[in-house]
């Protein structure tokens, strides 16, 4: 059969990579052109990713051998429904963030546009490479590319971001090293680095202690990079102190890409029975997930900074996803993968709201949200949709992925996970309604009713159009994914669930 090898598989990584090297040169010539160059590359990469997704669904799994070298000697890109979906997700979010950066970068990072866009595109390359590759070591290479660029991007932020980035660097490098160690164990025992190859070879090596150690190192390495409790300590400061555009880009998606890597390793490289029975890892994952959910939620309650609060919400959301992966039945995995998509979109919209508010008011504390329903109504609407999605109010997308996760937990009889999810819903209500109260109620100090004309003293000072358009697209996306969830789950998520369950 004619193998499916569309060129878009390579292009989607090459285009941003080459543009990343071109941007400093373009930027040196004319600063504002770096934005347009990046956006072109991002849009082109998005179209390639979309083409790849359609190609995978129409013609089957893509096996693209780089340089024409056959695996296991050469590096192969192996793209099935799961990573095609992840690729489109990353491409969409990066493209939208790229558009939204138009006014934000000159304000927050003056004179650094060219380096910023270069690093931005390199980060994009790294993440896409991680997603599309079919080779364990190649994944490590792209992992380090994305990690190093993210360290640099985060360190460009407000005072204190350098320390946060350093902490992220130290912890992240430890995590990546453990991952590498895990790959090393697997290579020594099997002699192969190709994922599909390993999948066959490892089936015969169930009892090996070396393989088990390799698996453990892989798991813990990914857990550090994924900010799974208790290895999440680098996340709150790093994401809160980073420049607004950097948080908006990487916060929703980086940990989700690591969750994808977890699914890959747990269900494709190793197979489900091994993970559940031999390694007894899945039970452990669910409990870590439960603690992440509760800890993330409760920590978020004590925050006065909006972005830090969202960072802890991310810790909790990773708990949902890892719990769903750990339960390892089809419904829960559908929920986990759907939640990866939904959470990325929801968090993107909320961090974007944070960006819009800090753009106009100069800060991202919860107190900076005072009166936004009056001063920045479109931003307020985007915030409402995003907040309701995180809480899990239908018809936003967040409700539907929570439904599948809860149903998966009920089917498996894992009542602790179900309870944790429901408790976290209530915690999220408390979190976001604090912000709603600040934004909605202008007369909290005035006991008497104030006549209407006086209120219009608040003139509308909205965020720039580029950010508003992106916010609108994300909010509309949240509602569309929710309303169309049945179609999306059937065509995109169901095929993405790894086989063998």
């Amino acid at each position, binding site marked *: 059969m004619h193998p499916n090898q569309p060129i878009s598989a390579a292009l989607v990584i090459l285009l941003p990579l080459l543009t990343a090297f071109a941007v400093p040169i373009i930027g040196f010539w004319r600063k504002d052109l770096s934005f347009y160059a990046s956006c072109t590359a991002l849009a082109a990469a998005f179209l390639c990713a979309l083409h790849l997704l359609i190609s995978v669904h129409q013609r089957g799994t893509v096996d693209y051998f780089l340089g024409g070298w056959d695996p296991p000697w050469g590096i192969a890109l192996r793209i099935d429904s799961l990573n095609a979906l992840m690729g489109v997700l990353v491409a969409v979010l990066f493209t939208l963030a790229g558009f939204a950066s138009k006014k934000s970068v000159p304000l927050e990072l003056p004179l650094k546009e060219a380096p910023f866009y270069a690093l931005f595109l390199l980060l994009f390359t790294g993440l896409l490479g991680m997603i599309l590759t079919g080779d364990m070591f190649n994944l490590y290479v792209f992992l380090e590319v994305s990690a190093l660029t993210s360290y640099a991007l985060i360190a460009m932020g407000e005072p204190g971001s350098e320390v946060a980035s350093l902490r992220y660097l130290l912890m992240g490098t430890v995590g990546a090293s453990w991952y590498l160690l895990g790959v090393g164990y697997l290579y020594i025992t099997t002699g192969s680095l190709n994922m599909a190859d390993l999948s066959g070879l490892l089936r015969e090596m169930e009892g090996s202690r070396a393989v088990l150690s390799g698996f453990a190192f892989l798991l813990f390495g990914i857990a550090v990079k994924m900010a799974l409790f208790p290895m999440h300590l680098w996340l709150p400061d790093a994401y809160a102190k980073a420049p607004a555009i950097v948080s908006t880009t990487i916060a929703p998606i980086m940990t989700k890409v690591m969750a994808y890597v977890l699914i890959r390793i747990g269900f494709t490289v190793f197979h489900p029975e091994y993970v559940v029975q031999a390694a007894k890892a899945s039970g452990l994952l669910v409990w870590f997930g439960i603690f992440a959910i509760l800890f993330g939620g409760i920590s978020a309650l004590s925050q006065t900074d909006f972005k830090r609060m969202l960072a802890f919400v991310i810790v909790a959301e990773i708990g949902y996803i890892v719990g769903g992966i750990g339960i390892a039945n089809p419904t829960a995995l559908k929920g986990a993968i759907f939640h990866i998509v939904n959470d990325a979109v929801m968090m993107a919209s909320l961090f974007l709201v944070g960006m819009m508010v800090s753009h106009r008011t100069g800060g991202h504390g919860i107190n900076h949200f005072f009166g936004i329903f009056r001063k920045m109504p479109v931003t307020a609407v985007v915030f409402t949709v995003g907040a*309701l999605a995180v809480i899990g*109010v*239908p*018809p936003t997308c967040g409700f*539907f992925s929570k*439904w599948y996760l*809860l*149903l998966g937990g*009920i*089917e498996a009889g894992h009542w602790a996970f*179900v309870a944790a999810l*429901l408790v976290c*819903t*209530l915690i999220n*209500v408390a979190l976001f*309604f604090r912000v709603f*109260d600040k934004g*909605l*109620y*202008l*007369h*909290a100090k*005035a*006991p008497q*009713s*104030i*006549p*209407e004309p006086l*209120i219009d003293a608040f003139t509308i000072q909205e965020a720039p159009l580029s950010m508003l358009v992106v916010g609108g697209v994300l909010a509309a996306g949240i509602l569309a994914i929710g*309303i*169309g*969830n*049945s*179609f999306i789950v059937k065509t995109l998520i169901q095929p993405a669930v790894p086989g063998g369950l």
Partner: protein
Amino acid sequence: MVALFLSMEYRPLWAVALPGLVSILILFSKNRPNLREIWTIAGSVCLFGMVLSMNAAAAGTGPVEVVLFPLFPGVAFHLRADAPGLIFATTASCLWILVSVYSIGYMRVLKEHAQTRFYFCFAVALFSTVGVAFSANLVTLFIFYEILTLSTYPLVAHEESPEAVSAGHKYLAYLLTGGVFFLLAILMTYHWVSSTGFHPQGILLPAAKNIPGWALSLVFIFFLVGCAKAAWMPLHAWLPSAMVAPTPVSALLHAVAVVKAGVFCIFRVVYYVYGLNLMAVLHLGMILALIAAFTILAANLYAIGQDNLKRMLAYSTINQLSFIILGIALLSPMAAKGALLHIPFHGFMKITLFLCAGAVAAIAGKKEISKMKGIGRALPVTLGAFMIGAFGMCGAPPLAGFLSKWHIALGAIQCGGLVFLGVILTGSLLDVVYFFPVIREAFFGKIPESQMLLQDAEERVAPLEEKAKWMESKRPLYLFMVIPLAVTAAFSILLCFFPGIFFIHDLAASAVTDIFGGR
């Protein structure tokens, strides 16, 4: 396109969508208050017309169904205008018209702030109420149920004082925690029978073969906690605190939207999810009836000591809602019919009482019963309507409340629950105990020296005797308040003699036939 709009096929969808559309129009008419009010009034009238047309049709053909798009395997976004839903929707839409007219008077007399936010949230609340009424399965119901809670939150905290915001938080705490339990119960139902659609004989009976009775009963309790909107004790505390909201909101919460959505959900869960047979087998009817009986008596006892008029009416509402719950729990045709009739009847009577309380607060500036001595002379129409509503609460003929309570009492006798008959009668007697003094003092009370001065909303102070003559006609805006409450009071009497108005009686009878099969 026009034909599509007018066709009966999609009318439940248009009925649900219309208040949503009105809410968007209100948002864009922020700077033109009169246009904004016109949207509300026009929308409410159109909605009522649509619902009435469906009432007329439902008597002949069957219920109109609209299936929109799938949500989960086996569950779609599904609307159905069946008999109980139409009763609820009729109540909501008719009272929306009257409360909207009233709000115009009330909000402008008091020069309230944030009126656009008020009308917007009102319209969204009505959108979700009609959605709850026409939902054909639990998931669709849940969607509208949560939107109802969230859209009424800014209304409860409208005053934005610390007291109002804290009342709003209490409101959310009770109702959203209930929502979480409701979601769990829906998930368990879906897990057991792979469907959540409503059916007059219930859908959970097949599950009873494999699932132990205690699990089914536990999930029933979860459903009840989910219906915390019905304010059954001990989940009632949000309601008296929510009285800090402006009066149109209290009228909406108590007669139209939130509380009736709660009892309506209990009705759906008992008959359309669990079904008559399962309820009887598991003795769940008895549990529910005991909860209702306790609430009836306890709420009335609480009401007796209240000085704030609206808080007293809040406890009276908790009491009356449990009458409806009792009617549902007795599992007999007469009682179920009485419960369905009490939804609109109580709605009209309670709204009369609340609109009167609001008129007294806006026109004469009085909120406490102890300060309302002799107010009947200054506000005769208002207090006259209050008297009519109060008689209705007690279940006295010729008020509508008599008719519905009579049915429930007959139902109690029919199923042999004479204890509950006693509860009904005691409850009605206790109603008299706290309503009667208000009426007596209002009309015949001697005004003490310290209260000789009357302060109206514009803070014009004048001696009571001088102002006493008919304050209600002093300003045209006052008429916006007084005419709706006179209309609801008139309906409270009319519905006793003509329960077939708006097809209410026919719908109730047809719903009972569907469930009990002509018994």
